């Protein structure tokens, strides 16, 4: 098991290197001069040169990259062109909200999706099955932020059950944290839940037709045990991969949903940076997201190794 984890982690190095390379060079060829933008309109040549030196733009590109990469490895993603705050600090301070939404939506989406998938598989064409099918096709056309807006409309404006905007860190008040996250998390988890329930249903149906289910029945096991120990256990193996794929989408969706609820997360940071062409912040944001996603994928790989003995090195 340890070997699997180490192999996976080592495999990340070239991938992350490529990510930093792409992020840095693509964003560095941006048309326009960030120094002149930051300097403002009445800017003398000296002031401009000073700004360029401050941003390190006077050095050759490859040198800039090496410096940036070296700093990034130490956790320093540079400084924003516009605010004095370090990029790493502003990302870390805003990541809590985004992470809370993403994790909660992953959990809710997975639990709901797998649960409804099992019910649909056991009772095909039942009310649950048909409802889930309908929601699944609807949620393909209704993005999370749209659902979020309508949830605000119903549960915050009309019924006033949950706050319409804002975020309270968990450390300040777990209860308020929860209350502020209910609507964003529901909005974000509907689509993955619907998708997952379809996948679970299909996977379970496939598994129920396997030879080893017949064997389990021939052993005289109770139906419940056949379903859980033999069918579900194997049906969930491919589902782990699906959940992993969904996390990246959820992280992206969280950025949009944050906007609906005016939650100060990574989304607002990135949007402000894009509007201002604040390149270090965008670079830091992309790199940070990439690292998170890569780590999540690795974690999923490892979980996959746990649930699927075939990939586990013995």
């Amino acid at each position, binding site marked *: 098991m340890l070997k699997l984890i180490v192999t996976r982690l080592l495999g990340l190095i070239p991938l992350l290197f490529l990510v930093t390379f792409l992020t840095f060079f693509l964003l560095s060829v941006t*048309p326009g001069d960030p120094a002149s933008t930051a300097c403002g309109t009445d800017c003398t040549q000296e002031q401009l040169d000073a700004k360029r030196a401050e941003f390190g733009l006077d050095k050759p590109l490859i040198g800039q990259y090496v410096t940036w990469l070296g700093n990034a490895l130490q956790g320093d993603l540079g400084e924003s062109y516009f605010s004095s705050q370090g990029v790493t600090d502003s990302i870390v301070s805003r990541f809590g909200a985004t992470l809370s939404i993403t994790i909660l939506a992953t959990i809710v989406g997975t639990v709901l999706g797998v649960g409804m998938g099992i019910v649909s598989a056991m009772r095909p064409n039942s009310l649950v099955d048909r409802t889930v099918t309908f929601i699944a096709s609807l949620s393909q*056309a209704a993005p*999370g932020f749209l659902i979020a807006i309508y949830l605000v409309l119903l549960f915050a*404006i009309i019924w006033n059950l949950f706050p319409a905007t804002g975020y309270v860190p968990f450390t300040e008040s777990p209860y308020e944290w929860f209350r502020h996250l209910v609507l964003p998390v529901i909005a974000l988890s509907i689509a993955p839940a619907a998708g997952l329930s379809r996948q679970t249903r299909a996977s379970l149906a496939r598994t129920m037709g396997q030879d080893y289910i017949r064997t389990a029945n*021939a*052993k*005289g096991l109770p139906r419940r045990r056949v379903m859980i120990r033999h069918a579900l256990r194997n049906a969930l193996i491919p589902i782990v991969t699906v959940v992993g794929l969904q996390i990246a989408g959820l992280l992206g969706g969280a950025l949009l949903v944050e906007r609906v609820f005016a939650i100060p997360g990574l989304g607002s940071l990135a949007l402000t940076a894009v*509007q201002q062409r604040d390149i270090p912040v*965008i670079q830091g944001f992309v790199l940070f997201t990439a690292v998170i*996603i890569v780590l999540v994928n690795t974690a999923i790989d490892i979980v996959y190794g746990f649930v699927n003995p075939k990939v586990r090195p013995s």
Partner: protein
Amino acid sequence: MSFTLPDGGSGPSGGPPPGGPPPGGMPGGMPGGPGGMPPGMGGIAPADLVASGGGTPYQTLSGRQRFWRRLRSRPEAMTAAAFLVFLVLVAIFAPQVAPKDPYDQNLRDNLQGPSSQYWLGTDQLGRDVLSRIIYGGRVAIQSMMIATVISAVIGVPIGIAIGFIGGWLDRIVMRILEVLYALPQLVVLIAIIGIMGPGLRNAMIALGLFMSTAYIRLLRGEVLAAREDLYVDSARVIGSPTRKIMFKHVLPNVLPTLLVTMTLLVGAVLLAEAGLSFLGLGAQPPQASWGAMLQESLTYIGRQPFLAVPPGIIIVITIMAVNLVGDAVRDSVGRGMPPAPPRRRRRQAVPEVDAEAILAEAAKELSAFGSARFERAPDTALLAVDGLSVSFPTPQGGVLTILQGSTFHVMPGETLGLVGESGSGKSMTALAVMGLIPSPGQVVAGSVKLNGIELTELSDNDLRKTRGTEIGMIFQDPMSSMNPSMTVGDQIGEALRIHKGYSKKAARERATDLLDLVGVPDPSRRVRAYPHEMSGGMAQRCMIAMALACEPKLLIADEPTTALDVTIQGQVLDLLRRLKDELGMSILFITHDLGVVAEICDRAAVMYAGQVVEQATVNELFTNPQHPYTEGLLRAMPQNTLMGERLRTIPGQVPEPWAWPTGCRYHPRCPYAQDACTSDSIDMQQLIPAHIVRCRRAEELQLEAAQ
């Protein structure tokens, strides 16, 4: 998930992703197949190419007709298409259709609900919402066109190029795509827009760039697959330059798939435009875009909640319509598949309604089908099967009886072989004895007695308790018959824990002993192994250990050696013989191999087309066969073939259950068949003690014995 490329593979539909096949995979996207497209189809209209997707090259017209017929057979897709046409027309004629100027501010009338003057109300600046929705349609269509064209124009050539050139270029591009796909799509878009700056046009160029990856992957896959194909090879032999090959030969074949991808991408573009404009990265105020309208409505949601309703609804409806049309196009172009859902629904409905009644009817007929003309199984028999019939309801409302009046018995300590070709009903007999007939099939007549207890009358729960304790069963393919995610030890111990209440530890110990008993080396280590870590022979030994865990009196072995190597086969047979003697159990041994029967069985029952046709001791059966089918099987044994002689076979094959002939079911293949054999049903008869046969000419025929 906010934006999803249709070939992301994780969409809620769960359908097969339309994306390109993996390198070297099947050329799945080319329904025409090699040579399916006449070469030199220069400036051809998309519809013709779509038509060739139907599978008939050179018959473009009928193919096109089929495409349209398939599309038309889906009314919801037609409605969706009509809606989209309407939307496009309204957008084109927006200045004529819109009731007001979308930019005309009227601050006195701001934030109004729907009224006769403003059908959908007004926004914060008093602009007419309906007019803005109509003009927003223009933005959506423009965005769609920019992004779609850019993605295709960039993606198609790059995809073809890297597919053809391959090598390091291919590796670099694919590596970059991998990184792009790992990231959330929104993050990639934010990065690209970060480079170019916000604004609708830039956002759509960014989107086009990002979506070009879908075409790159698709085209690369298609080219790689096409390169394997003969017709490109032959073009190369003739000496066509590479570029010409690409455009004349590959592109026409890919176009149907390309069209589908494009249709499916449209929905993704619309979603992305809405999302990006909502974030302020796309359309900028005062431009009327559905996404931007949502963003504005959010600011005033407390004062005029209705403001959020129209743009949201139009987004959902439009994207749904696009997806419906996209799905329909995919299914119509795609490998000749008819629209599936309606058909499936019909197929399921019939048996559900009528199954019980149909089977009850069948039962009445079959119970008359007796076993009267020969001696009954002795009272001391361990297993006595009498007149066992199994039927399935058919979708047409009929009934399919796949096992008819099976009669045989197994004495304590005896091995009975159940012999016959594939499709003769051997396995179904075994499953019927176990009470494991797959739904909606049923035992409709007959009796199964184990130690004098009627199994067909037991409750489901009591029958379940019989399985694994009184009767154990092993199957043909040990690998697929074991749960891949459970250790062998847990699978063996499972029955003990359920039926006998063993503790986890005791079950593990007993499992180790059992592995030792069935001759698995190093059992204390193997008990922790997973099935995939074993060879086929070892796995079958584990299966045997599993079946024997609760020391059943009867072991049903369903072709347990068929999937194994010949040398391993002998070992497993030896093992079964030894275990039978050591444990004093009986075996019902199902096989198509008379050689195996001779080796391990005491008696044998020969089955043909759902009936037992002959039953006797193995010795008797081999030396004095009474049924022509048995004779045929004996003759076909390689052991009975002389050196240098052709292997003999029985001409023809076992008919399918719905094509069983009247009279003797073997008569079409029987060299001794007479007219009488074709009409009357034949009962079992006993001519010599302990030898029964289902043949009207048994008495007169002198059949060839085994040598």
